[in-house]
Every structure is written in structure tokens, then in C-alpha cells.
């Protein structure tokens, strides 16, 4: 049994990597591939919301706006100015962060529900901007013909190639998020979530660190938006309605608040669920709603908690009664030194 645990611990990351990297060859066709791509894009988006809401406790109910800003930014600079798609990706993150900076200036001192609603209002306003600022956003007609990126002359247009691009971004975002959380900045964010009064007493400049979380989260969200725009190659306001913000929130909670594997799973599964339930027709959205409630009731730590539990079980580190997160940290520390 011990050797099994050991074997599992050593090999789990490689097995996972192998499966993920060869996924496009397992997936039966482009349709499933496209759904998988969309799922990964939403994983990135969920992960970034998690930085803001899960780790810093800043609930945002208008998060989709930043995804939209990213999608539009990249689409605009690439189609109108003819810039490289890669520049578009970066700019998508930067512009999205810029907006969050402007939004953050007045809203960083709002707490709880009030911040959430301010972002909701922002989301609605941005939707109106996408819709009505016709000269820039194309208004209701949107922006057509958004090109796919090229990589050393290879077009990433086929879903199977685009898959690797999204995967790479996802992996980078995962690593960055993980490192962030196990750092001074990340702890300051957690502290704000837990108890902002005590955080202040620890010397945490609360508005500043909220802002940092906001900037990082929206940067990733912007990049996710650009990934979306260049995949579907058509950007229009309907993709960024506020109902989508609620969907991303649901992905985060169903996945497990503050859990990285959870965010990935939540984004992925809640994107795929309605697709795979297609055969059920109209009833599928009823089931989707019920499934969200059921997961929240029966899996308090979300799907991520489940995964962590299984992982703990297989690797033999599942100590009854110890707090999972903290044990992870000590291991992590050993790993670094």
C-alpha cells in the first residue's frame, strides 16, 4: 500500500500531463474539442474570479465585463489596427486591468454586497457600452472576422491546435495563481477575506491589496476573453450579458471556493454539462439549475474538495482531522528549499 501511495505521488503529475496533452487525439471530433476549448477558457475565467472572490473575498457579480473587455480589445486592435494577435492577447489583459483600476479607485472601499453590486452595475454599463458605442465595438453587429493566431507560421485555427494554446495559458495561470497564494501578497489577500480589521492591524494596506487582486484577476479574465474572441472569431455583446457573470460565479462555487483544481473543474464541467445534456432538450436547463443547488448542498467544498480528498486518499496523505490546506503548505515549503 505504501509503495502504491509513493508511486502515485511521484507519477500523478506526469499521468495527468500525459492525458491532457494527448487529449485532442482522444476527443472524438471537433465538436467535443470546441466544447473542451470553451471549458478551458471558462476554467481560466473561473480561476481569475477565484483570485478576486475566493481568495480576497471580493464578490463580483459583473465579472463577465472584463472578459468582454478583453475579447473586444484584442478583436479591435487585431482587425482595425492590424496588430499581431499575440499583442492582442497581452493588450486584452492590460486594458482589462486598466478598466479594473479605474473601477477600483472608487469601489475598493465598498464592502461585501455593496462591492458586488457596484460591479454588477459596472457589468450592465459595459454591456451598454459594447452595444451602443458602435464606432468602436461595431454595436449590435459586433466584430466579424477576428483572425486566429499563428505560431511560427502554423495557423492555430483548427480547434486541435488552438487547444494547446488555451492549455498553455491555463497552465501558466494555474502556476501563477498557486505561487501567488503561497506568498506575502496572497496571504494579505486571504487576510482581507477573513478579517479586514485584523488585516489592517497586521500592516496590510487593505485597499491596495484589494486593488492588486483586482488587477491580477482582471488581467487573466481579459486574456481569457481574447482567447474566446479568437476562437469563435466573432465578438458581439450577447456573449457578455450579466447572466454569464452569474454562471461564472456558479462555476467557482460549484468547483469550490478558493480551490485551484476546483475552479478548473467548475469552469470545465459547468460549461460541458449543458452541452452534454443536449439530448434532453429543454429540460436540460432545469437539470442544470438543480445540479448547481445539489452540488452546493452535497459537496460543501465543491468538486475541488472532492478531488483533493481523492488525491489525498490515493497519495496516502489524507490524515483524518488535519486541515488540508495547511498541510499542503508545509509540503510546498519543503519542496522549495
Amino acid at each position, binding site marked *: 500500500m505504501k509503495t502504491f501511495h509513493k508511486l502515485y505521488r511521484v507519477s500523478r503529475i506526469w499521468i495527468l500531463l500525459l492525458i491532457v496533452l494527448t487529449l485532442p487525439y482522444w476527443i472524438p471530433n471537433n465538436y467535443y474539442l470546441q466544447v473542451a476549448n470553451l471549458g478551458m477558457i471558462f476554467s481560466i475565467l473561473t480561476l481569475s474570479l477565484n483570485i478576486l472572490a475566493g481568495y480576497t473575498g471580493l464578490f463580483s457579480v459583473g465579472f463577465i465585463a472584463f472578459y468582454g473587455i478583453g475579447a473586444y480589445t484584442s478583436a479591435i486592435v487585431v482587425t482595425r489596427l492590424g496588430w499581431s494577435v499575440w499583442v492582442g492577447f497581452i493588450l486584452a489583459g492590460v486594458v482589462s486591468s486598466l478598466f479594473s483600476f479605474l473601477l477600483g479607485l472608487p*469601489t475598493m472601499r465598498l464592502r461585501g454586497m455593496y462591492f458586488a453590486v457596484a460591479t454588477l*452595475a459596472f457589468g450592465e454599463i459595459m454591456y451598454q457600452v459594447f452595444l451602443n458605442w458602435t464606432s468602436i465595438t461595431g454595436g449590435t453587429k459586433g466584430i466579424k472576422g477576428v483572425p486566429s493566431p499563428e505560431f511560427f507560421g502554423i495557423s492555430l485555427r483548427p480547434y486541435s491546435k488552438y487547444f494547446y494554446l488555451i492549455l498553455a495559458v491555463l497552465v501558466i495561470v494555474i502556476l501563477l495563481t498557486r505561487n501567488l497564494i503561497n506568498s506575502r501578497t496572497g496571504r494579505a489577500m486571504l487576510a482581507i477575506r477573513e478579517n479586514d*480589521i485584523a488585516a489592517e492591524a497586521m500592516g496590510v494596506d487593505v485597499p491596495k491589496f484589494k486593488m492588486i487582486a483586482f488587477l491580477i484577476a482582471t488581467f487573466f479574465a481579459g486574456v481569457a476573453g481574447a482567447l474566446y474572441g479568437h476562437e469563435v472569431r466573432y465578438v458581439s455583446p450577447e456573449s457578455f450579458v450579466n*447572466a454569464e457573470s452569474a454562471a461564472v460565479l456558479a462555476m467557482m*462555487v460549484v468547483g469550490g471556493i478558493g480551490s485551484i483544481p476546483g475552479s478548473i473543474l467548475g469552469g470545465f464541467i459547468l460549461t460541458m454539462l449543458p452541452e452534454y445534456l443536449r439530448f434532453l432538450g429543454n*429540460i436540460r436547463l432545469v437539470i442544470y*439549475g438543480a*445540479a*448547481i*443547488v445539489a452540488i452546493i448542498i452535497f459537496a460543501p467544498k465543491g468538486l475541488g474538495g472532492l478531488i483533493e480528498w481523492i488525491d489525498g486518499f490515493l497519495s496516502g496523505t489524507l490524515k483524518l482531522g488535519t486541515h488540508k490546506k495547511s498541510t499542503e503548505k508545509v509540503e510546498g515549503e519543503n519542496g522549495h528549499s
Partner: protein
Amino acid sequence: MNFFLQQLIQGISMGALYGLIAIGYVLIYNAWGVLNFAQGDMVMIGAFAILIAHVYMGLPLLIAFPIAIIMCCIIGFLVEISAFRPLIDANNTRRLIATIGVGIFLRNLVRVIFGADPYPFPSIFGNTAVNIGELKIIPQNIWNTVIGFGLVILLSIFLKQTHIGKSMRATAQDREAARLMGINVKKNMSITFIISSALGGFAGMLICPVFFVIPTLGTLMGNKGFAGALLGGITSNPGSMIGGISLGILESFGAGYFSSSVQAGIAYAVLFLVLIFLPAGLLGKKESRKV
């Protein structure tokens, strides 16, 4: 001037409706600590309940109304025990998302049963506008305003003065301590949800002659009520009415005097500004902190 007054009247009567919906949010927020994103869908359920009672079952309005209210209460109760009660000790985030899930569920369930298309509903208070000078006032609007205000006053009294009202507030502040007082937290929860479902449903019944009965009614009116509740300061009952009416007037003037293409945007822009300059809304209490 006439145009101004007409827009004002329109704004107030829509606003009274928003206010009525907003109270439902306030009630649950006070008792439960989260916004109930399914509250708007109770408005929709109310509209369908009265549709069933009056149009399908053919009951006269005076009987159909109470029956529809009872239907709303039952549905509210069922939702509460199946989706919200198991989460009684869960943190706010999980409960918030559960309300989103419930909203999706209800909306689509109704859509599966009734289809996505609107149903007409006969006018309750008559169609002929009352003329005051050159102003035209639709009876429905007068009634909406009167009933809205009446309910807000009743509810405020209920929460401020009655025992159960206070215990609901206590429950929201500290569930465990509330149980130690002998407060039956579960029963309180149910009562809160039943009242708020009835209120939401009631709003739905009042608007269906004007706006038809349609599954998406909830999303739209829910958003307005929610914005109204926040404008008023989310914890305050009279505030919800004031917030709702402000929103109604703003929308109406926004469309009338600015560009109607940004009607929805204007409402949210104002909500945004209010949050920034009056973080606790129009009537909400400023949070004092003590360590």
C-alpha cells in the same frame, strides 16, 4: 410640463412596483444575510399562479387572488425546504449561488411547462385611463402605487415591532446564538421565505395585465427590484420603496430626456454613483465598527 408630469407619474407607478419587488429582497437579506437571486422568479411564479387560477381554472379574480397567493406560498416553502434549508449553516457564498441555481431551475421549469411565449392576461382594474387635465393616469398605476406603499408600511411594522420580526433579524446576525435563545431558526426561515414569496408573487400578479405572463418576467423585474433594494440600502424596508421609486423615475426621465437607448444603462449608472457616494444606499445605516 405635461410631458414632465406624465413621465413622473409613469416613473412613480413603475417605481412602486420595483419597490414592492425590492421588499422581498430586503426581507430575505435581513433574515438570511444574502441577496436572493431567485426572488425575481417568484414574481414570475406569481404571474403564472394567477394565470392558472383566473384564466385556466376560470375562478373570479376575488377568489383567484388568494388562491394564487397560496400557490406562491407553497412553492416558496417547497423551494425553501428543499434548496435553502440544507444550507442553513453554510456560508453566504454558497447560499448566494444556491439562489442563482434555484432561479435557473424555476425559470426553465416554467418554460418547459408553459413554453417560452407570453400569455395575455385581462386587465384587473380596467383599461380606461383617468384624465386629469391633459394627464392620463392608468388605474393600474394608481393601484400599484397604493398597494405597494401599503405593503411596505405593514411589513415595516411587522419587522420592527413584532417578536418574530426581531427574531428574524437576530437569526441573520448570529444563527447559533439565535438557537440558544430558543428561536426556531428553521421555522423562521420558512416564514421569511413564505412571506417574501407571497410578496414577490403579489407583485407578479399586479403586473401581468400590463406586461403579460412570460417566464422571463422574473429576470427582468427581479433585476429592477434588486437595484431598487440596493438604492434604498438593502436593509431598510422603507428604503426599498424609496429606492424602487427613485429607480422608476430615473428610468422614465432617462428615456424621456436623454437617449432611450441607454435607459437601462442610466439606471445602473445611478446605482453605481449612489454606491460610491452613499455606500450604504439612500436609507441604509452606515456601518460603525468596533474592535
